[in-house]
């Protein structure tokens, strides 16, 4: 422990003296955020949704009313067959079918729960993801209100205020997750492989230093930097994009840091394995790209082929993004996202073991 902290103190001091590295470690995430934020904002607009209300009762009218109140959604009434055609032509993003015996009422045991069918346009997965999330949230809140037997009318107002999910709100947790992943893996892998090539690691390994302590000191150093990065990203998200963070900042930070540690261990494993700097980007891309596409950063996770979805759902970045998004968008607490946290911890342990195992200061 003492060894870890003494090494950490010196590594951090060295890192903070390196102004260029420091600059880039804070500027790059900022740029990513701004670029992705603006790019996606521009082309996103609103989600166009068709509603086929087959029940036309009080309950369905109430649901439609709530959905209409949400600014992100652009609602039209259309029968299913027409809507599906439009959907295929990508003139629509989503179709919501409200079945005939729809009711907003507490379900009794054995009774069928009313099923709302949601069709999404595969070509516009981002919009569909946002739309689905909004619908899910509205239904969550309605159900919650029902089971709490709170007056439904009161809930309606709350819902209209609460569900103001815009695309940035959906995007920011994802960007946060991606940044955490990229920075942790790339910065660590490059720096350590450089150390390896210059012979720094050889010199250190000529001492009886305990490898887990050395790795932990490196992890702690990067964690301090990562904390700064997360803070900057959140600040920009709040100030520039006025992102709504429904859940607390504290749980968001906790999960973000857990994610950082996880990806740092993966970065170390990669750095331990690689012998030249040229190997780093290739392998790093191999690790990060699939996650980038399949873990719901910019695209809905459901855009991944169903066959591989069981796998993509377990990817580290998927777990991280899910947790961040649930906290940020749905106001989840740490306890609510405990499955994801558990998943992150399992990955972290695996990453650390891998890092210690693969740690080679030179190839022999």
């Amino acid at each position, binding site marked *: 422990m*003492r*060894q870890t902290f*003494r*090494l950490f103190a*010196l*590594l951090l*001091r*060295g*890192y903070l*003296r*390196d102004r260029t590295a420091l600059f880039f470690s804070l500027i790059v995430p900022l740029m990513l955020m701004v670029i992705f934020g603006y790019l996606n904002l521009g082309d996103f607009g609103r989600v166009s949704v068709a509603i086929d209300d087959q029940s036309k009762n009080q309950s369905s009218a109430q649901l439609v009313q709530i959905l209409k109140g949400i600014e992100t959604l652009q609602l039209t009434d259309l029968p299913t067959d027409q809507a599906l055609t439009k959907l295929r032509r990508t003139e629509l993003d989503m179709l919501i079918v409200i079945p005939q015996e729809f009711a907003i009422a507490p379900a009794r045991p054995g009774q069928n729960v009313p099923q709302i069918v949601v069709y999404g346009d595969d070509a516009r997965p981002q919009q569909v993801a946002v739309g689905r999330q909004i619908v899910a949230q509205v239904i969550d809140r309605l159900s919650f209100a029902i089971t709490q037997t709170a007056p439904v009318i009161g809930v309606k107002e709350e819902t209209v205020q609460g569900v103001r999910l815009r695309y940035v709100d959906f995007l920011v947790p994802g960007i946060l997750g991606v940044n955490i992943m990229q920075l942790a893996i790339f910065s660590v892998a490059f720096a350590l492989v450089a*150390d390896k090539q*210059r*012979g*720094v690691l*050889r*010199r*250190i*390994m*000529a*001492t*009886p*230093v305990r490898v887990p302590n*050395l790795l932990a000191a490196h992890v702690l150093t990067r964690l301090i930097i990562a904390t700064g990065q997360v803070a900057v990203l959140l600040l920009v998200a709040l100030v520039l994009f006025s992102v709504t963070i429904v859940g607390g900042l504290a749980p968001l930070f906790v999960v973000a840091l857990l994610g950082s540690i996880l990806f740092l261990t993966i970065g170390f494993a990669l750095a331990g394995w690689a012998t030249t700097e040229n190997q780093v980007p290739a392998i790093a891309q191999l690790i990060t790209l699939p996650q980038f596409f399949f873990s719901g950063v910019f695209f809905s996770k459901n855009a991944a082929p169903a066959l591989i979805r069981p796998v993509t759902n377990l990817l580290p970045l998927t777990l991280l993004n899910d947790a961040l998004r649930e906290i940020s968008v749905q106001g989840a607490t740490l306890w609510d996202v405990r499955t994801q946290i558990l998943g992150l911890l399992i990955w972290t342990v695996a990453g650390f073991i891998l890092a210690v195992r693969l740690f080679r200061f030179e190839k*022999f």
Partner: protein
Amino acid sequence: MTPIVQVNDLRKRYGEIEAVRGISFFVESGEVFGLLGPNGAGKTTTVEILEGLRKADGGAATVAGVDVFRDPAGVKRRIGVQLQASAFPDNLTARETVRFFAACYDLVVDELALLRQVELEERARQPQAKLSGGQRQRLSIATALVNQPQVLFLDEPTTGLDPQARRNLWELIRSIQARGTTVFLTTHYLDEAEILCDRVAIMDEGNIVALDPPRKLIDDLLGRGFTKPVLQQKANLEDVFLDLTGHEIRDA
């Protein structure tokens, strides 16, 4: 007294290359031992096996009473090393660099005293990367002394240094020896070996071809009837250089 380094039939190959071909020797406690040989002779390979940094393919070796193959960490605790090619962590001062290595041994040391020992006390706050070649070698020796090693391994400590800095380093090595530390060094400079080492081993293509005190090796050669083709000059160019530029170290 048992030798502090014992090597028996040590072997190492890299694929096709037989870098070390079954060498045996020992180093007495307290001596300065030199391993000489042309490029690629296998010096670094031998030294780094003894330091617990490379795995051997065969043979046996003990350093400071510890079996190198069984307990490399135990060896590392008892020795100090300067590698032929290595670098220090980025962006640390000379003093912090010493502290970093002390932390690697989980020791707290008087960093300034160590820097004083290698005549770098005034450079304590200077970034390590901005030290001159000679200063960096001395810092490197300071980092190798943090654990008060029983054996100090120096792989080509004077390569790339000017004559003054080399002589300065010889003084330092002698003072380390005077404190009772065994010094095991490699070098290409034969004058250095002659002046500094109590005994030298000459290595060629993975074998030790001679091992004796320098004086004895020279006498043996003369005994075999060797004469230099040209008469030994009374002075050489290095003497001229030192006469013109003085013996004072330049970058202290």
